[in-house]
């Protein structure tokens, strides 16, 4: 136990010190935090519950739009703001900016969760690949439709409020980094707490055999909806921060970007290992390093590399890093291994 506390403490201290150690990578580190949040939330849904979704991008994009709209709409008329496009007709004072951002984040977290609860009963009745395709459709439809709504900028995009002028030049990067890092820690601890309760066992039961779980008297639908709402809550938060960080929201390229972010979160969780606590974290970190390498050195070819990467991971590495480690060192994962039994299994293979 004490070993764990040292590990967590080291990570926490590293996380807090990171922007000062690597001042040039503040934006990259913030994006890494967002990616880890998304991978963790996807894992609640896809890894633990067994409902593989492409649709969490819906909540991410929704959170992004909601946070920015609230931040603007609290002080200025939203329609005029988006009509002005890049031209800054209105300027937030620092107090307005931070207040708006805080309220916007709260809205961006709560509203997607409510929406997930509302549509959950209909959508979560689907299973397997029907669920996957349905959520894929939901994500793309949201992108296409939001691209046609005038008040949030339609096709020309939505410029989020620029960071207010404060004395320090570094302040913007640090603010967004600490926002995303705090949300990451919050997400991780919340999910860790959830995983130590009976709730996780119910989710796993649903993944392993839903009919049997239902026959055992578990109200599976209730748990599935709650699981999805948890996913949506954190996805919305991540989206809200990402909107402020990027500074510009486009319906299909930034917010409801099923081709990038929507696939990334699935891929990161699978790369790290579905159904584990640390898997998505490791997967997201490795993936981000890979991705930045590709994006820098193979500029233009990044989607080709991404496509190949997806195929390779899915075909040759479906268990992920944690799954591989678990097979290699089962003792570390608290599984009691009978040495003779294990040898017998190996020879059988």
């Amino acid at each position, binding site marked *: 136990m004490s070993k764990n506390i040292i590990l967590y403490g080291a990570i926490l201290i590293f996380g807090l010190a990171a922007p000062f150690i690597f001042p040039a990578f503040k934006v990259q580190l913030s994006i890494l935090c967002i990616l880890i949040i998304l991978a963790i939330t996807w894992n609640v849904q896809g890894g633990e519950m067994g409902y593989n979704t492409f649709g969490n991008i819906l909540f991410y994009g929704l959170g992004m739009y909601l946070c920015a709209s609230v931040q603007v709409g609290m002080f200025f008329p939203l329609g005029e703001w988006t009509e002005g496009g890049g031209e800054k007709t209105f300027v937030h004072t620092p107090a307005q900016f931070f207040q708006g951002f805080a309220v916007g984040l709260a809205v961006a977290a709560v509203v997607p969760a409510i929406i997930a609860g509302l549509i959950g009963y209909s959508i979560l009745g689907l*299973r*397997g690949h029907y669920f996957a395709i349905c959520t894929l*459709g*939901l994500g793309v*439809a949201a992108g296409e439709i939001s691209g*046609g709504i005038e008040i949030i900028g339609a096709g020309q995009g939505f410029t989020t409020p620029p960071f207010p002028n404060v004395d320090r030049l570094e302040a913007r990067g640090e603010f967004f980094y600490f926002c995303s890092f705090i949300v990451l820690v919050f997400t991780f601890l919340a999910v860790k707490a959830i995983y130590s309760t009976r709730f996780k066992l119910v989710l796993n039961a649903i993944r392993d055999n839903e009919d049997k779980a239902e026959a055992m008297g578990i109200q599976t639908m209730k748990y599935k909806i709650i699981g999805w709402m948890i996913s949506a809550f954190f996805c919305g938060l991540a989206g809200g921060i990402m909107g402020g960080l990027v500074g510009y929201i486009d319906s299909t390229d930034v917010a409801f970007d099923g081709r990038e972010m929507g696939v990334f979160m699935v891929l990161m969780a699978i790369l790290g290992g579905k159904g584990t606590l640390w898997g998505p974290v490791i997967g997201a970190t490795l993936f981000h390093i890979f991705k930045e390498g590709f994006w820098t050195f193979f500029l233009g070819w990044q989607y*080709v590399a*991404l*496509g190949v990467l997806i195929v390779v991971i*899915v075909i040759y590495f479906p268990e992920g890093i944690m799954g591989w480690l678990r097979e290699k060192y089962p003792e570390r994962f608290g599984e009691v291994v009978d040495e003779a039994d294990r040898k017998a299994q190996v020879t059988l293979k």
Partner: protein
Amino acid sequence: MLTLQAVLDGLLLGILFALIAYGMALQWGVMNIINIAQGDLVILGGYIAYFMYLYGIHPAWGVIVSPIIMYFVGVIIYKLVINKVVDRDLFISILATFGISILFMQLMNFAFGADVVLANSGYGTTMLFDNSVTLPNSKIFSAFISIVFAIGLVIYMKKSKLGRAIRATAQNARAAKILGVDTEKVYAATFGINAALCGVAGALISITFTIHPYMGLPYTIRSFMIVIVAGLGNLPGVAMSGMGLGVFEEFADYILGTEFRIGSVFLLLVLILVYRRFKLSRKREYLK
């Protein structure tokens, strides 16, 4: 008259969708694979016809050339990727073909550029009912060719040796293997035929509409939708629901506006799935 125009447009468009959906139903039924790259195969087939047009050959010949090339593309994809996911979880196949889809999109973007293109067939238009309804002849041509290919494929599946092997594998792959069917070859051929159908549809789309490297996914979703409405192996059903979808789309285009066209297709998919889920849950069943 606008209604009549929309209905006719939709029907002719729907026949094309049905052709793509037929390919999807075929491979879904035989190999239990959902191919997200279906739409990208269509677009690739379209570019073959477009390049013939650029080099001075009439693009209608693409209807013959494109499926031949696409057959081999399909077999290659099968050999490289699909044969490793055939008997795995369906989600794995969805993700793997999603990867192929992204790969194809970007490669086509590099090779052919990001412009919206069309191959001009120069077929002219037909005016009906006192010039109130305009029908491009290319649309009629494409619907006719689609029907010819669909009927040809049905006869082929019924009569030929390979067709019989494919149907046997779809019924029970293991039993077919025991009785001497080389299922590996059957799978490769099925995927190739699917790709060839996509090639035909793509060539027709490049003549009648426009093609663009990123336009693949909507075609995948459309064919998926048609298949889940009609059911696997129900060819009249595929044709009917394909035409129904075409008409729906044209009306959505007229009523809501073009910017919501693709969005309404995707939303319709969600609605259909949810409708079927509620209908089945009364019998305590779910979509399998």
